[in-house]
């Protein structure tokens, strides 16, 4: 299973994904630059990603906490999510996300 992550320079990376990991953790573990300052506590907004349009509807909707936390992220769009709040499950095999501005470590 894998996810595809586009970095801030526009390069695609295919990352092996483990069930039960958060997408932020998969990205961080692979070594792509992602600040994720609060370590996944939905308390910083620095793990902001854009989800590819075809995947937006297939994710669990964002919680109220996540929507609030996105207020402290930048250039938030309709497909914005906090990657620490997306739990990877087999249904998400092939998920595509792009690192957003302000998530740089």
């Amino acid at each position, binding site marked *: 299973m894998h996810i595809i992550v586009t970095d801030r320079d526009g390069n695609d990376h295919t990352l092996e994904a483990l069930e039960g990991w958060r997408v932020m953790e998969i990205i961080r573990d692979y070594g792509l630059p992602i600040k994720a300052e609060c370590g996944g506590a939905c*308390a910083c907004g620095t793990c902001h990603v854009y989800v590819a349009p075809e995947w937006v509807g297939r994710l669990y909707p964002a919680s109220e906490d996540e*929507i609030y936390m996105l207020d402290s992220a930048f250039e938030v769009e309709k497909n914005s999510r906090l990657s620490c709040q997306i739990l990877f499950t087999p249904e998400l095999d092939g998920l595509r996300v792009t690192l957003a501005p302000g998530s740089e470590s």
Partner: protein
Amino acid sequence: MSEIQETDVVIIGAGPVGLFAVFELGLLDLKCHLIDILDKPGGQCAELYPEKPIYDIPALPIVTGQELTDRLMEQIKPFGATFHLGQMAEKIAKQGEGADECWIVTTDMGMQIKAKVIVIAAGGGSFVPKKPPIKGIEEFEDISVFYAVRKMDRFKDKKILIAGGGDSALDWTLNLHPLAASMALIHRRDDFRAAPDSVNKMRGLVANGAMDLHIANILGLNGENGVLESVSVKASDSDAVYDIPCDTLLAFYGLTMKLGPVAEFGLNLHENLIAVDTEKFETSTKGVFAIGDINWYPGKLKLILSGFHEAALMAQEAFRIVHPDKKLRFQYTTSSSDLQKKLGVA
């Protein structure tokens, strides 16, 4: 500049580890001053996750970030440490030789403290406002773009645009509105995570035409030589792009941690962390210690409990530096009437 204050130990950072260091140093009769850029003690626990539970503090099966901070404050109360909050420790300088050797710590407000020992408990670095990644924003900073309000006067008769949807954004919208030439608030959605009372007041002003509310995202800044003329934005619910005329932008997107001045203290660093030994948690410079999230040694784990342990060992060596002539006695708080007296329980 005010008079130099004197103490035994200056602790830079009032996070959980800096707070517990007061306790360990206090048991050895060492007096402390703490400096923190935040306006409250507790570091990450109080700023990033006050309401969230921590499960791995020994003997506290569950405690929130704020509760842990409150309990530490209670635990160190007998030692009467002095807190200097809202100040950044900017410089450390050595003074004197041999037995007279000591340190002077200077803050961004010009305050100076003299001590034999410095303990850096700076955690993930000092908390500073997040800066929006808008192209060319640096040129405008401190001229037209600000991330905090230090003096309200500065914003008198300005055409102000405030960005953000939390308490800081709403509070400053309401506080600065009476003195501004014009006031507008911009937020990405029409919902605010701020005190409902402030939100209602803001909506009242908008309804009366006393200020503008834009539900939009900032695209760019327009102006020359740092003088802002307008801000280009894109509406959240349409693709409409337009300019908001203003000469001042105040952006409130929360805080982030930056290593800051500690990097310039001249200590050996390991990937932006301060390298220490694991016996005394001393840095490459004698008399300067680093404990908690800011330090690095092989096997380091960024856990609160590790920081507590580091504080206890650091205190032993700090004692030897402050009182080279005195003998250090190992005692338990349970059985030592001497320690109990210091704690005010005997």
